[in-house]
């Protein structure tokens, strides 16, 4: 999904409204579920108007999503519905309303679905009395694999998460990070097409985190759908092709970070510019009506600009650069998940 894909709205939001298109300042209702062609459906993970209520408690409400291949991150505060979405797409819970399909298959057909899907849950619990190898191997036999095939696949998966040395120790004796990795190995041992990972980096030390992130990238490059939920926003930034922001059971925004950021018109883009004459620079740009604010930095070697139209500002930047002002660097200051999170989800939190 990218900002140029006009068929699919980038933002769909209940409650506080976020304008969807250019110049559109009117409040709007959430768009109707995307009417995709059947062939496209078979290549995506689709949620059509899905709601899940646990009694009177809302899990997720009226979720419409279409997730393409690549790494998609589910981001949101605790209780926003990330795990519920993952449980819905894997059939561990059934939706109260709506329809879910993964690559054209329904979660109600586990015997078909789980040849293509692997899910690493948040539960830190395992069948008792098993070693890491037995855990992965035994569940591979459930898939119908023969002993040699299951043994080979188990060893490959365990190697991939760097647990070969501890594979034949009981899981009860593993550290938190090792338990997390063996769960990961079990989720991907059968080489699924879709990998759903609920906070997979929990409990991992920085070195293993980096290796695991590299693993996810390589899996995504192989064509897998990797769906990750995480709280670690800078890693989401570094890792994800697209994000889905959730809050209170609603999808607040979805798409690439840059595209989502561009749609948030009530928060002008912040751009950090390092240059030798920030005063001159500021006087030039203030003439433009789309520049809202320019603040010279404390060290006097740059300024922070807020603009409503980043594209036009960058064009202006080119002209200013040709006029003699030496520009060292230009970087978006709030074009990341953290900023988007604060603008969209932080705004809904009641002031303390």
């Amino acid at each position, binding site marked *: 999904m990218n900002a140029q894909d006009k068929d699919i709205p980038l933002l769909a939001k209940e409650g506080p409204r976020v304008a969807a298109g250019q110049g559109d300042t009117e409040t709007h209702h959430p768009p109707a579920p995307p009417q995709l062609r059947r062939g496209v459906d078979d290549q995506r993970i689709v949620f059509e108007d899905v709601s899940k209520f*646990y009694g009177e408690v809302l899990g997720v409400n009226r979720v419409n999503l279409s997730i393409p291949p690549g790494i998609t991150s589910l981001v949101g505060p605790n209780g926003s519905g990330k795990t519920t979405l993952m*449980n819905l797409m*894997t*059939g*561990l*819970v*059934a939706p109260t309303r709506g329809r879910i399909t993964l690559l054209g298959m329904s979660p109600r057909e*586990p*015997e*078909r*679905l*789980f*040849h293509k899907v*692997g*899910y690493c*849950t948040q*539960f830190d*619990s*395992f*069948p*008792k*009395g*098993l070693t890491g190898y037995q855990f992965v191997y*035994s*569940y591979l*036999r*459930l*898939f*119908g694999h023969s002993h040699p095939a299951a043994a080979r696949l188990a060893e490959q998966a365990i190697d991939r998460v760097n647990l070969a040395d501890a594979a034949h120790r009981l899981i009860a004796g593993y550290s938190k990070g090792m338990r997390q990795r063996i769960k990961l190995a*079990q989720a991907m041992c059968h080489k699924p097409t879709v990998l759903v990972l609920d906070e997979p980096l929990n409990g991992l030390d920085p070195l293993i985190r980096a290796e695991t992130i590299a693993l996810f990238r390589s899996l995504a490059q192989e064509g897998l759908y990797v769906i990750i939920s995480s709280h670690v926003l800078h890693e989401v930034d570094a890792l994800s092709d697209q994000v889905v922001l959730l809050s209170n059971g609603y999808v607040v925004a979805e798409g690439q970070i840059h595209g989502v950021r561009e749609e948030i018109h009530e928060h002008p883009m912040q751009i950090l510019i390092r240059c030798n004459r920030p005063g001159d620079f500021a006087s030039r740009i203030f003439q433009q009506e789309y520049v809202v604010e320019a603040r010279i930095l404390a060290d006097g070697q740059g300024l922070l600009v807020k603009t409503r139209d980043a594209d036009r500002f960058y064009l202006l930047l080119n002209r200013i650069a040709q006029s003699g002002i030496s520009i060292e660097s230009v970087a978006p200051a709030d074009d990341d998940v953290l900023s988007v999170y604060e603008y969209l989800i932080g705004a809904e939190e009641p002031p303390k």
Partner: protein
Amino acid sequence: MSFERLPWALWRAQILAILRLEVRKTFFTRRGAWIYLLAFAPVVLYAAHSFVELKNGGHGDLGEDSHIFAAIFQFFFLRLAIFFGCVGIFGNLFRGEVLEKSLHYYFLAPLRREVLVVGKFLSGLLAATVIFSASTLLQFISVYCYFSSNTLQEFLFHEHGLAHLAAYLGVTLLACIGYGSVFLAAGLLFRNPLIPTVVILVWEAVNGFLPAILQQMSVIFYLKSLCPVAVNESMTGDSHSLLDLLAVNPSPAAPATAILGLLVLCLIILALSSLQVRRMQIDYGAE
């Protein structure tokens, strides 16, 4: 899909995989030690009795011993040992996984829920049958072992000894099937399986005092019908006691009816359990 084209080979492989996983949890674990105690307590008793009789010269009465064996088998082994053993083995198959938060691993495999139920039931049945059948065999050996070899040969090969042994082993197997399916379903339907356990225990305990038609609505009635030696319901031994007056001894069910009835009951319960598992959602927080 026609019957022949169903993936029998895959289901067989999956059931075997479930058996491999489950058997590890049921056999030779410290947590399951109490089931072995339940099962083999009568063996110890009979062995002690035989030891004492041997020391006293071995002048026992084979008929009396057969009657005592029958009474212990029906009133203690079936109603308590196998009953509670099946509560522990089968009641834990799903409920235990939910409490340990490991059931989702099965739900996340390409496994039909019906196959899962069958696999789990067969794993419980294998464990229960091996343990309790071994106990039945050892009980039979230990209760008669102090008799002379001539008496034993006469009893086993020329009288009904071996037939009795086969009958007791068959009743043990059917008891595991009957109670097993009931407690597998109880573990699925009730968050606290204590309640159905107590209800069924009391129902089976007072079974002998219920009207004949109600007696037929219990597993123990059919199991008693298949036992080779009949034992009166009242254990007080006092023919004038109130319990004796209240005891009802209807005619036993025909063996074919008893066997078929228990198997059909088991199949119906497994089918209903499969429906329940199919609708099951993973929500460990509620436990």
